[in-house]
């Protein structure tokens, strides 16, 4: 991949050079972060440059120091928001030059931006490339802090799928620029919401990056001027950034559009009778415990018990922030190897349970419109004359969406009306999921329904005999204590999968 990078340097005039396409550069996403900053106010800027910008353009000889960093940043944002690209370049003479050209007619195509750097040209990728030793947090070494933070920023960018994000953001910006956008307010709302949310993520990372570079500048300045107070203050700031960066790395794992949603988790027993039904109920129990540990509210929606033990299938609702983001890592077939307690001759058995995870889209998302007349509502397990003849607390209903054949059942509520309402919610989510899968393949791996999960799509093995181990086949992450995993200690598996899958995606670019 060849791309251009523009660097601002103290000692040289502006120049363009081809990014050496070495491996590390690709991996570290050192490609230019030439993003178009487009925001809702683009129409204002369409009419021309801001006066602020024009003033500074007329006055190219103003020194770098007067063109403060604040201005530098604001200016860049403002110009980029207008759909114009800017190169702010410091010439050897110390004068500042600002070059602005309209979007689409520059060398950089539809996107261009300057990579933020310190006053002496150090960038985040530059810091990582320096390979400064990362020491313990307690060591007051700014280079160590800076290197750790810079690494985190790279991880965060990778997890946010920075390059895809840029492409998407450009697409959305182009869409937002269309004059007839608001002819379809639903579509426009969707576009502008997504744009806003992506923009927010980009800005957050950019600000974090800028903050790092500013602190480095401050430390250098403090050293030049022997200001120990300023130095230790900046060092402290770096340290707190370093601590904060780990949290941000985690957050970046869950940056998908549906990740913040609550979800349904469904477990279905594979072939193998009672042993696999027992396994399915163990898996379901594992998720209930996991969700409770995370502070989610778990509600059993539907359960089909096995004849002797376990469950044939069951659905739970997991309510809470990022429930889908985490749980989606569990989609697939889970394999158990043990000596079956249901086998009188004590043989070793292998059984499977399939897990599906369905996001419950928020109100802001586009929902599938369900036509009442397309529904068939039936009483589940109905028998006998009903009505006054029967007093039962069993009032489960099954709703069939006739055009798609998608069904939903709920039997856990205390009235038929509530069972129907809950089943409708499940049905809505299933239809939304179908629609999502139809519309976009980007999330296809997480949006398979139970029936679509092939038993070959095995993601994890739980061995209780002859040795004890749980191993994820996707990441090779393993633990030797199956009990803790079955008691819901799944976060290690989930996080390793989420980071591995995002890293893989980014490498595949």
């Amino acid at each position, binding site marked *: 991949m060849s791309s251009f990078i523009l660097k601002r340097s103290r000692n040289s005039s502006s120049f363009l050079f081809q990014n050496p396409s070495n491996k590390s550069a690709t991996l570290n996403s050192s490609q230019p972060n030439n993003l178009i900053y487009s925001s809702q106010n683009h129409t204002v800027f369409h009419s021309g440059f801001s006066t602020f910008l024009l003033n500074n353009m007329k006055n190219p000889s103003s020194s770098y120091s007067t063109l403060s960093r604040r201005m530098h940043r604001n200016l860049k944002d403002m110009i980029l928001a207008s759909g114009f690209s800017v190169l702010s370049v410091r010439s050897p003479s110390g004068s500042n030059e600002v070059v602005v050209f309209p979007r689409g007619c520059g060398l950089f195509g539809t996107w261009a931006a300057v990579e933020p750097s310190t006053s002496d040209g150090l960038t985040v990728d530059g810091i990582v490339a320096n390979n400064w030793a990362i020491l313990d947090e307690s060591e007051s070494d700014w280079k160590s802090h800076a290197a750790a933070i810079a690494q985190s920023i790279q991880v965060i960018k990778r997890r946010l799928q920075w390059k895809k994000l840029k492409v998407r953001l450009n697409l959305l910006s182009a869409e937002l620029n269309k004059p007839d956008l608001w002819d379809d307010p639903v579509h426009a709302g969707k576009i502008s919401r997504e744009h806003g949310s992506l923009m927010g993520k980009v800005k957050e990372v950019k600000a974090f990056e800028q903050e790092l570079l500013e602190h480095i500048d401050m430390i250098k300045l403090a050293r030049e001027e022997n200001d120990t107070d300023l130095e230790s203050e900046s060092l402290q700031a770096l340290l707190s950034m370093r601590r904060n960066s780990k949290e941000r790395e985690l957050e970046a794992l869950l940056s998908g559009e549906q990740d913040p949603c609550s979800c349904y988790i469904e477990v279905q027993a594979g072939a193998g009778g009672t042993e696999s039904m027992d396994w399915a109920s163990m898996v379901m129990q594992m998720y209930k415990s996991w969700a*409770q540990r995370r502070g989610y509210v778990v509600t059993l929606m539907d359960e089909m*018990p096995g004849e002797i033990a376990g469950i044939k299938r069951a659905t739970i609702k997991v309510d809470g922030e990022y429930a889908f983001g985490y749980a989606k890592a569990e989609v697939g077939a889970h394999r158990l190897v043990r000596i079956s307690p249901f086998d009188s001759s004590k043989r070793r058995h292998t059984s499977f349970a399939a897990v599906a995870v369905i996001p419950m889209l928020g109100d802001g998302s586009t929902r599938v419109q369900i036509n009442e007349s397309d529904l068939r*509502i*039936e*009483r589940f397990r*109905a*028998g*006998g*004359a*009903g*009505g*006054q*003849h*029967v*007093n*039962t*607390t*069993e*009032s489960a*209903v099954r709703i069939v969406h006739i055009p798609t054949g998608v069904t939903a059942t709920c039997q*856990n*509520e*205390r*009235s*038929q*009306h*509530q069972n129907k*309402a809950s089943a409708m919610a499940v049905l809505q989510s299933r239809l939304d999921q179908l629609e999502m899968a139809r519309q976009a393949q980007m999330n296809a791996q997480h949006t398979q329904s139970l029936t679509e999960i092939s038993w070959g799509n095995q993601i994890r093995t739980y061995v209780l005999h002859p040795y004890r181990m749980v191993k994820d086949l996707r990441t090779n992450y393993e633990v030797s204590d199956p009990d803790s995993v079955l008691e819901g200690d799944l976060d290690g598996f989930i996080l390793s999968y989420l980071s591995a899958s995002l890293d893989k995606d980014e490498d595949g670019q």
Partner: protein
Amino acid sequence: MKLSLTRACCRSYTFPIFRKPSSVLPRAIFHQSLSSSSSSSLKPKTPLFLRPPKHSATFSDLKKWHDWANTLAYEVGSSFADSDNGPDSSILCRELKWLLEDSLEDNSLIPHLGIENNPNSVKLRIALDELYGLWKERIEKRKPFQYLVGCEHWRDLVLCVEEGVFIPRPETELIVDLVNEVVRDNEQLRNGIWVDLGTGSGAIAVGIGRILGSKGKVIAVDLNPLAATVAAFNAHRYGLQDVIEIQQGSWFETLKGFEGKLSGVLSNPPYIPSDDICGLQSEVGKHEPILALDGGLDGMDDLLHLCNGAASMLKPGGFFTFETNGEKQCKFLVDYLENDCSGSFCNVSIVSDFAGIQRFVTGFRRAL
């Protein structure tokens, strides 16, 4: 509360006058109604979930009870289901969970029950030994779960019920949907007078009381004074005391003066043929008021009475829905309403419940 119990106090109880003479007198239940009404201080029992949490038990004692109750439930297996279509273990276990939910002050503690030897205590709305007694009655006497907890979840309502008052059925929830469809686009009906005859716990009355317009009224009638008090309690609990008027009486008897003025007549009358009563599921036959179940020889006594009454009471364009025993009664009624009521009705139709059983007959009073 607009509960007028004057009738209950001053009339002499000669039920056969408004009941068909053939109907079996519901012994214990009848007796209870009479004796309590004579004091004119009928008070509905407070359902479990509304009682103050003034009892307490340790987690481990509660767990002991729960394990015991669970074992009883499991031992039932499918024996009830096989003998009279009663509940199986899985249904009983779910009921046990709900009983626990209604008994505990703080439901979030339920997962802690699994912890062995937890010495902490937990607040309960009922004493632990009473819980033992209740569950024993559930399993051994087949006492309906709803009488244990004193409530039934019906639609999005939680209705107070107690022994002597018929427990509203899930099928009947649909009547509210049917009414909703009718009043949605008809302001006149939405703001008219509706009657729920044989209201029992007041389920239909409360259900439609919440969907009628600001001028809409419901008159809920029941012969059983205990049912009338419970219905009044439920109406009050949902803040509908100004919308729902409770009357104690038989069918249209108290509604003199409303001829040709009602916007709607709704009822889930007794419709089980007398011969079927003795074969009913234990929860129903042994515990629920037979007054609310027995519909005479072919189960049609009260339904036919209601059809005749609806013809004279409904105003032109007024709507009616009656719940029935199934296809046979539905078909008979449709034929009767179309051919024997001298053209009083139009758009008579049958609506099935979610089990696919033809359950309701609906129609409109023909406009003159």
